[in-house]
């Protein structure tokens, strides 16, 4: 039997080695709740728009679920073929953060485009007002 297949069968047969301790679960739950309170507070003070808050609430809920039902994490680790739950958790969080920051860049790009269009409209509108102003002035002068 080759070393490769030995590792493979070990990975398949072994349960995830590290389980979350009760203390870790409590800390995670408290942090998740504190996080969601912070989000809510930001919305209340109009520092964060509701439409952008939803992804953060979902992230908070996911944290809470992970703390309450660590079996979910174990299942996930198994599905990913990772023996260590913490590594599965970290990879997952990194991936979610990557997607989140990408979505911010998308939002940023859209808003940059909107700002450009606003600048263009404002430039054209001011020019038109100037033209109207000078036009009516010329009319008055010709009368």
């Amino acid at each position: 039997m080759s070393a490769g297949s030995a590792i493979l069968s070990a990975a398949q047969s072994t349960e995830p080695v590290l389980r979350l301790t009760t203390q870790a679960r409590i800390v995670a739950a408290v942090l998740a709740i504190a996080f969601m309170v912070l989000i809510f507070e930001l919305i209340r003070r109009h520092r964060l728009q509701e439409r952008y808050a939803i992804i953060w609430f979902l992230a908070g809920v996911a944290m809470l679920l992970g703390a309450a039902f660590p079996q979910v994490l174990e299942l996930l680790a198994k599905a990913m073929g990772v023996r260590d739950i913490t590594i599965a958790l970290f990879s997952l969080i990194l991936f979610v953060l990557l997607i989140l920051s990408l979505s911010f860049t998308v939002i940023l790009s859209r808003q940059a485009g909107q700002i450009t269009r606003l600048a263009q409209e404002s430039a054209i509108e001011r020019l038109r007002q100037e033209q109207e102003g000078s036009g009516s002035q010329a009319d008055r002068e010709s009368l």
Partner: protein
Amino acid sequence: MRTLVFIPAWNEEDSVTGVIAGVRQCLPDADVLVIDDGSTDGTAAQARAAGALVASLPFNQGVGAAQQTGYIYALREGYDICAQTDGDGQHPPQELARVVAQVRDGDADMAVGSRYLDPDIAEAGDYRASPMRGLGIRMFRAIVSASTHQRFTDTTSGLRALNRRAMALFGERLSSEFADVEALQRAVHQGLRVKEIPVRMLPRAGGDSFLNPARSLYYIYKTLVVLLAGHVRPRGSNSGSQ
């Protein structure tokens, strides 16, 4: 035919007056509009004093956004032809008039002045570019020509004239990354008749060259991405806008 000549200008107070005077001399019937792209110097005041219309963007948005402002204005005000020329004085107004004539006579939907099309002019003009710029020029030339199956020599030229069909293609699209080079590709893909004519250009009146190596590299990167996206975009319709 009502003609608008617009001049995108960012801090060009030293040269803009001369450019406006040149345009008025060579195209006396055309309206002249300076798109002041968030200048912090006296560009807008100089342009007004020289008798041009001035549209001031509240902050610098880049030459693409400034050009688009010109197209939008020309479209909404019902101009038949709209032409653009640089604010730094490198485009002789006689050459601008020749480019405009191409569109006015119906020979093209969009005409572009090229300093490289006629080898003799290119030789005499000695348009020496930095190595980075030279690389970009050759790359864009090859890519645009391949993508459009039409030969282009001066893809970054800012000396252009458009009829309403071409304006509509560039005016109402929301994009902050509008690029000279992509405009050629897009126009040909949408079935417009795009024509390059050989022109003479002058060295910049003064100041530093706009593109240092880092900015050149960024410009090349940006244009390559835009060209690639433009190449795979569906053609023959305007449905892809917005």
